C-alpha cells in the first residue's frame, strides 16, 4: 500500500514529512492546510522533471477528495492562483533556468489534462497553455533540444484536447512548427526529428500510423 501510492503519485522526491502530509491530504483533506499543500506541490513540480509531468494526478485526487469531504474548493483555487503567478513570471523563469521553464510548462499541461471540470477541460487554462506552446515554438526555443522535447511531449499528451478547444490556434502553432522545421537552420538533428514526428502525428489525427511508428521508434538493423 505504502509504495504503491508513492509510485502512483510519483511523490518519492519529496521529503518524508511532506510525503506524509500529502498522503493525509489525499485521505482527509479537511484536516490539513490545503493552501500549504498546493504550494508544496507547485514548488516541487518546478524543480522535479518527473513530478512536473505527473503531478496532475495527485492534484486531481486531492480536489475530488476535498469536494467530497467538505464540498470545498480551497485546494484547487490556491493551486490555480499560484500557477497563474508562475505563469505570469514565465519569461523570467525561462531566462533564469530552462529546466524550471520546461517543468512549468509540463506542470501546467498536466494540470490541464487531469483537472477537469464536470469532465470538461478547464477553459481558463486553454489560452495559457497555448501561450506556453507558442513560446516554445519561437526560433530561440526551437534550437534548444530540451525545449523542443517539452513541446512535443505536451502535444502528444494533450494536443487533441487543445485542438478541440481551439482549432485555429492549433493551426497557427503548427504553421510555426512547420516553418521552423523547414527554414530554421540552427536546429539540432534530434530537434528536427522531433518536429517531423509531431507534424506527422497531428497530420495523422493525433496518432502515429504504423509506418510512421516503425520509422520513428524502431531500431534499424543493417
Amino acid at each position, binding site marked *: 500500500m505504502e509504495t504503491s501510492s508513492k509510485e502512483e503519485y510519483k511523490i518519492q522526491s519529496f521529503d518524508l514529512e511532506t510525503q506524509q502530509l500529502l498522503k493525509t491530504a489525499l485521505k482527509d483533506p479537511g484536516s490539513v492546510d490545503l493552501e500549504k499543500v498546493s504550494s508544496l506541490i507547485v514548488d516541487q513540480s518546478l524543480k522535479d522533471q518527473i513530478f512536473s509531468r505527473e503531478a496532475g494526478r495527485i492534484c486531481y485526487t486531492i480536489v475530488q477528495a476535498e469536494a467530497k469531504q467538505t464540498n470545498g474548493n480551497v485546494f484547487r483555487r*490556491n493551486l490555480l492562483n499560484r500557477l497563474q503567478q508562475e505563469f505570469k513570471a514565465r519569461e523570467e523563469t525561462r531566462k533564469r533556468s530552462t529546466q524550471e521553464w520546461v517543468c512549468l510548462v509540463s506542470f501546467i499541461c498536466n494540470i490541464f489534462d487531469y483537472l477537469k471540470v464536470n469532465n470538461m477541460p478547464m477553459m481558463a487554462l486553454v489560452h495559457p497553455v497555448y501561450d506556453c506552446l507558442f513560446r516554445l515554438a519561437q526560433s530561440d526555443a526551437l534550437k534548444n533540444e530540451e525545449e523542443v522535447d517539452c513541446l512535443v511531449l505536451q502535444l502528444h499528451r494533450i494536443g487533441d484536447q487543445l485542438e478541440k478547444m481551439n482549432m485555429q490556434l492549433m493551426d497557427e502553432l503548427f504553421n510555426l512548427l512547420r516553418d521552423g522545421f523547414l527554414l530554421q537552420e540552427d536546429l539540432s538533428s534530434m530537434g528536427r526529428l522531433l518536429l517531423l514526428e509531431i507534424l506527422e502525428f497531428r497530420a495523422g489525427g493525433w496518432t502515429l500510423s504504423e509506418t510512421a511508428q516503425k520509422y520513428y521508434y524502431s531500431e534499424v538493423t543493417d
Partner: protein
Amino acid sequence: MSAHQKYKYENDYKPDENRNKGASRWSHCRKRGADGSLRKSHSVEEPGKCSQSSRRPESFTTPESEGPVSRVKNWGDEVEAEEMRSNVRRDMHRYRRRILEADFPQRERKISSGSSDSRDSRDSKESPAKGDIETDETTLIRRQKQINYGKNTLAYDRYIKEVPKHVRQPGVHPKTPNKFKKYSRRSWDQQIKLWRVKLHAWDPPAEEGSDLQQIEEIDLGEIMDFELDVECSSNTESHCPTSSGGSLSLAEDSFTGTPKKMMKIEDAEMS
C-alpha cells in the same frame, strides 16, 4: 507572436483578496468562509480582520473610483465560474428529464385505473410545461448562488440531517426554491428570503454571553413585531421571523433559539 495575443494577462488579480478573509456580520452562520475554507462552528472572528467594506481589490469598480480597471479574474475564480455554469447546465438537463418523466407516468397503471388523460394537480402547479422553464443562464447562475449561500450554513446542514425528505411537510419545513421555474425577480428574491429565514430555525445554539444578546433582541423584537402575523411569545428567548404579510403557521418549538441575525449586530460591535 501572432494573433492569439488578443487576450491579455493584466496585473490586477489578488489571490489574497482581503474581502475573502474579512469577517462580516453573518460570518458566524456560514459553514465556509468566502475563501472556501471551512469554519469551525464557534470560532470568533479576530478583531484585527478588516470588514468587507475596507480594502477592496483593485478590480472593484464603483462610480467613485477612477474608472474601469482590468477585470481579469484570477484562475481560481474563473474556474469556479466555469464550474457553476456547467453545473447549472447539467441541472437543467436533469430537470428537463424529470419533467418529461412526470409528463409520462407509467402508462399501464393509468389505463387499468380507467382514468382518461388526467393530469394530477402536481403537473399544473409543480411541473411547468416543457417550454416554460427558466433557461437564461445568467439568471440561473444568480439564483444558484443565492441557493448556495443558503445551503452553505450550519442551519441547513442541521436541517437536512434532522428532517429527511420524506418526512417534510409543505409549509412547515423549508423547501429550496426551484430555480427553473419562471418567477419575477422580486418574487424569486422574496422566496429566497423566506426560505432562509425559515432555515434559521435550525441555527446551532450560541455560546457567546447572553446578556448583551438579550438587550439587542428586545430592540429588534420591537421593530420586527409589528410586521408579524405569527403568534409569538413575549419571552425574549424565543424569536419570530420577519414575514411580509404571509402568515406562517410555525410551531413554536420549531425555533430553538435566538435568530442569528440579531446576534450578529453585537458581534460586529464587539470586533
